[in-house]
């Protein structure tokens, strides 16, 4: 039997070195990823251990908190519907049309995502101090009233809905609506009969995200709507109000309600994603 050649040894060493390097790379990335996940889970677990079913029950019995839950559900649902109503045409036009200033329009649509939330609230407050804003206020009281909650939520939620729907319409080949046009459709028929049904999962995802985003909105609501109990108090405001009076148990209990709602939304989106991957009709 002949002994292995130097070239053979070298290949063996190279392979070992590569395997070692691959393993180190994966371990480093896994540790970094795992530590973030651990941080996320730890915060939720800490919340869970801080509260008890008694605290939760007590919070749910409070008339103020029940009002906040009702207003949150109502305002978030209206915000989600309003966001879809506006985001669908914006996203469709941005995905399909080329026009001068499209880059600028695209950047403007991101403003609510990048602006600090307090600045959004302040800007809304100032807008309704201008003559056109005051004119609207004479017909419908907005500032420090329920419509201001919806408008503050809508400003941010709609931007997220636009981003989601833009990606959805970008993924639907224009060929589909072109075929519909040759089959006898007008542009509007092609949109309602082909594009929108094909975008249904994206529309549902955008609506759900807008709802969840609206539920978590706090900064713009605090500035533009105030934090008046039985008037403009939503769940995020409740957490702030309960914290400010030192009632940490109630703040954590309400936070957990919001966590439960967020988890339900995430599960809904994941289920939709799974449906999409399986190609099943909804």
């Amino acid at each position, binding site marked *: 039997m002949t002994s292995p050649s130097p070239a053979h040894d070298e290949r063996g060493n190279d392979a070992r070195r590569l395997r070692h390097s691959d393993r180190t790379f994966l371990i480093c990335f896994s540790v970094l990823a795992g530590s973030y996940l651990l941080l996320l889970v730890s915060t939720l677990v800490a919340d869970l251990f801080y509260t008890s079913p008694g605290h939760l029950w007590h919070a749910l019995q409070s008339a103020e908190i029940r009002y906040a839950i009702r207003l949150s559900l109502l305002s978030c649902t209206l915000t989600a519907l309003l966001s879809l109503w506006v985001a669908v045409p914006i996203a469709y036009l941005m995905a399909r049309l080329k026009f001068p200033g499209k880059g600028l329009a695209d950047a403007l649509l991101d403003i609510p995502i990048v602006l600090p939330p307090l600045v959004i609230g302040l800007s809304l407050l100032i807008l309704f101090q201008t003559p056109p804003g005051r004119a609207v206020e004479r017909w419908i009281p907005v500032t420090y009233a329920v419509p201001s909650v919806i408008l503050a939520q809508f400003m941010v939620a709609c931007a997220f809905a636009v981003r989601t729907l833009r990606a959805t319409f970008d993924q639907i*080949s224009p*060929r*589909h609506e*072109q*075929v*519909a*046009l*040759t*089959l*006898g*459709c*007008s542009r509007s*028929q092609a949109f309602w*009969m*082909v594009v929108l*049904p*094909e975008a*249904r999962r994206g529309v549902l995802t955008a609506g759900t995200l807008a709802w969840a985003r609206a539920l978590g909105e706090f900064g713009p609501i605090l500035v533009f709507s105030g934090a008046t109990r039985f008037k403009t108090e939503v769940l995020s405001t409740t957490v702030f109000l309960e914290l400010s009076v030192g009632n940490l148990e109630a703040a954590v209990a309400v936070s957990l309600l919001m966590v439960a709602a967020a988890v339900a939304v995430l599960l809904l989106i994941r289920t939709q994603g799974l449906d999409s991957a399986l*190609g*099943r*009709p909804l």
Partner: protein
Amino acid sequence: MISLERVTVGVGGFELREISFSLRSGAYGVLMGRTGSGKTTLLEAICGLRSVRAGRIRLQSQDVTDLPPAARGIGFVPQEGALFSHLTVRQHLEFALVIRKWERERIRVRVGELAEWLGLEALLDRMPQGLSGGETQRVALGRALSFQPGVLCLDEPLSALDDDSRAGICAVLEGVRTRTGVTVLHITHNLAEAERLADTLLRLHHGSIDIQIPSASR
């Protein structure tokens, strides 16, 4: 009949200038040319999906240059079929007829005819996601022919198919003319496919069209 008179059409910086050719009624024209030569752009212009910069397009003796796609009466089968993911095979065959407000019974009869001819009877209630490449193209063809158009435009309908499916669809396409009398314009890269189907061969080369009549069709 398909007739193009000095048609200029472009996408961005690319332009096809003063293209002219004519296909008589009931002809099966196959358009060949290199990738990027502008075959699909020309087909889109004929279908009304891309506006022309100059020239006139006539279909069945009618000037359609300024008509929207819906008013041109063209059946269009794009590459990969482009089936609608939310409709069943039956709904695809009904789509153009529902738009045209045909009576329910007339639609049922027409869908039955198409399904029998294209071998889609067992697939009528299936969604497009589970269909094979050949089945997808048969549905796309049935959808395009459902409203009995005078012109059928096919954009590389066989390019994504395996050999067996390709032979099956070729046989269906051979029957299209005799069965429907439609004027066909078919884009392909495949010379064997062109020679089998074409009675007029159009070659798009350096921005102009050469017309050849294959020997088998003379």
